[in-house]
């Protein structure tokens, strides 16, 4: 047994030596960079866009001599890694930022205010889709990102199921809904719902407790305060606005009639058996998988999930725009990403050059060709449409909002995390039938209270 001990000790010594020496290999050349310029670090989370941004980086390097090192971290780890690196002072020079996080970073002085740089270099902000650039400006006028893409919400439906219900694609093009009887939208949902005995939701004898295929899908959380893909398109076409102003609202409207009506109608779909209950919905791995398994006929999802849904095998999907509401128009939340610069970057000029490039038509054309997102620059939209068409997807359901001006900016506010927590709990309780619409009044007062203390 002595050999055992010696072996262990020997292993320890070897490993320790190995650990100590091989540590510095191959990674201290980060700052050396290429022959002519510096190297900057760039983070993003969507692995599907890595190829596109690498192309941008290569093109950028040819023209400016600056090397961009791209690192990708999954969404789940992105923000905590970023925060930890902020604290340690090792954050990336440029990184993809998100509307729900940048206000906090701005307040904490972790990201660079580009408003002076934008003025000096005469950046023309009108090249971007209306409203996108303003999303990235804080109350005190600081600008923290140049828009790079946008997304909206549409209806994804199973074409086979539609045909079986005796409906046509045309029927889906101009759906209407209202909080009283749901309009043609609810009729379609009912027609698509099938119970275990094959009876449809709009036929007599429909058993709402034994549904095989639900007409409309429900996401696992009920949407929270944002409700981007869950209820925003209904509420906003019913006259609901998140707050007194957006961005940076301080008086919220979750206690409004418009909101209560919308949610009550939406919940009624569960009661009628057309939409799964929240218990069932939150026991699902993801909306996409349930849809792919044929458990749902339609889902309302964001354009960033187009590829994931369209490429599901065994299911043929088509897109339809969100329904027209009582105020005579459709609605969709308009969200977009931008890139921010770390305030402690050692290469501020290079970082700014890269951000400018990312916000330019040149780079966004390249990204558009990958058909993953819609570019923020107006002129690049054609390329994106063409790229999506080449894949066989008709994305007019997403772009119609931009064309008709029915977009609504995503909500941006301080204290968003706390606000979201309160409303998420209220919506969940409501959908679980543990509370009625008056729960929103209480919740709204709590939310407003967050802002009066500021």
């Amino acid at each position, binding site marked *: 047994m002595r050999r055992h001990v010696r072996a262990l000790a020997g292993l320890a010594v070897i490993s320790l030596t190995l650990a100590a020496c091989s*540590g510095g290999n191959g990674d201290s050349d980060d700052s050396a960079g290429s022959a002519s310029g510096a190297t900057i670090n760039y983070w993003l989370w969507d692995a599907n866009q*890595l190829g596109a941004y690498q192309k941008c980086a290569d093109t950028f390097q040819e023209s400016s001599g600056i090397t961009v090192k791209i690192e990708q971290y999954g969404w789940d780890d992105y923000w905590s890694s970023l925060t930890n690196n902020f604290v340690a002072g090792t954050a990336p020079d440029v990184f993809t930022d998100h509307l729900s996080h940048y206000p906090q970073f701005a307040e904490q002085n972790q990201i660079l205010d580009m408003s002076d740089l934008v003025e000096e270099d005469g950046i023309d902000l009108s090249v971007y889709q209306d409203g996108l650039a303003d999303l990235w400006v804080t109350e005190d006028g600081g600008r923290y990102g140049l828009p790079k893409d946008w997304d909206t919400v549409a209806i994804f439906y199973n074409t086979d199921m539609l045909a079986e219900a005796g409906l046509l694609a045309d029927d889906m093009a101009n759906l209407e809904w209202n909080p009283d009887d749901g309009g043609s939208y609810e009729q379609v949902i009912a027609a698509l719902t099938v119970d275990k005995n094959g009876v449809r939701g709009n036929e007599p004898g429909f058993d709402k407790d034994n549904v095989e295929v639900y007409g409309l899908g429900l996401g696992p959380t009920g949407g929270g305060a944002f409700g981007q893909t869950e209820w925003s398109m209904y509420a906003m076409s019913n006259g609901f606005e998140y707050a007194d102003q957006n961005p940076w609202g301080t008086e919220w409207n979750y206690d409004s009639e418009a909101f209560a009506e919308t949610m009550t109608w939406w919940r009624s779909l569960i009661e009628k058996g057309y939409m799964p209950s929240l218990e069932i919905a939150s026991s699902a791995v993801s909306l996409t998988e349930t849809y*792919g398994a044929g458990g749902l006929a339609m889902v309302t999802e964001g354009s960033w999930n187009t590829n994931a849904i369209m490429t599901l095998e065994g299911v043929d999907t088509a897109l339809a725009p969100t329904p027209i509401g009582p105020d005579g128009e459709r609605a969709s939340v308009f969200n977009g990403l931008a890139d921010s610069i770390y305030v402690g970057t050692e290469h501020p000029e290079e970082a700014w050059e890269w951000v400018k490039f990312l916000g330019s038509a040149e780079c966004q054309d390249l990204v558009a060709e990958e058909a993953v997102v819609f570019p923020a620059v107006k002129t690049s939209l054609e390329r994106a449409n063409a790229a999506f068409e080449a894949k066989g997807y008709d994305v007019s359901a997403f772009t119609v909002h931009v064309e008709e001006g029915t977009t609504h900016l995503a909500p941006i506010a301080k204290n968003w995390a706390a606000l979201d927590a309160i409303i998420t709990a209220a919506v969940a309780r409501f959908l679980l039938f543990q509370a009625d619409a008056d729960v929103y009044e209480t919740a709204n007062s709590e939310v407003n209270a967050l802002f009066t203390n500021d």
Partner: protein
Amino acid sequence: MAVTSTAPDTVPTTSTYREPRRRPAFGRLLAWVFMALGLVVTLFPFYWMLRTALSNTRALAANADSLLPTGFTLGAFERVLGLSTTAEAIAQGGSGASVNFWIYLRNSVVVATTSTAGQVFFGALAAYAFARLSWPGRDKLFFAFITALMIPPIFTILPNFILIKDLGLLDTYLGIVLPTLLMTPFSVFFLRQFFLGIPREIEEAAMIDGAGRFRVFFTIIVPMSAAPITTLSLLTYITSWNDYLWPLLVGKSESVRVLTVALGLFRSQTPQGSPDWAGLMAATLIAALPILVIYAFVGPRLINSIGFSGIK
């Protein structure tokens, strides 16, 4: 645990000591049934992982009730091992980022081995001091060590990260390994409890013969504790192998990135998105293989059937 029936033994036995056959047979059967059930529940998810790993991610949802792989393909394994092209990967539902599998494997081996060797070695030394030596403050310090188990990671991750950065050890093996190299509460606690159970007579005999504490430790205690030490090493190795959050923070560059961090690629990339299921399952199975190999070698040593029966 066998359950014996209370019926008296009716089989006549000629010798004074012979295991009665009828009673334990029933109990043994029950025990085997329990064991078999346990094995099925334990192993079925692995079959499920294998089935998913051999499937095409995009076809998974549509064929959810099939017990066999859907769209049978080795694509997932190719993605994990870095053998697949971007186009192929995306076509099957993967993300197309590159994976330098063998480098990450090497890094995982170095990190896990170093970490385990250090933890076990220093842990054993400390455990012996707590179990057998007497000195003022011993029990208080031991309790303090145990409470280290309860310190929430949010307390330790950030300061340790800053410390490693200040020491200039970011992106090095030593940086990844250092916080747990000298001590983990588990290893000290575990070994101390085992050392307590070693009969004192042997040590006392050796010390009477003039051996010092270190000699006693290395020549008597450690060999006698081969089973717990091996068990601890195996468990520590597994824990270190599967560590994700810390290596993610400290070991970003390719040359030190460990397997778990690299394979985080197969988890969800976008908000509300789905992971690359087939790739994730294939990655998990492949990441578990090296440990299985180690277990195959080390396993027999987990049993020390010699025990302490050789005392007298």
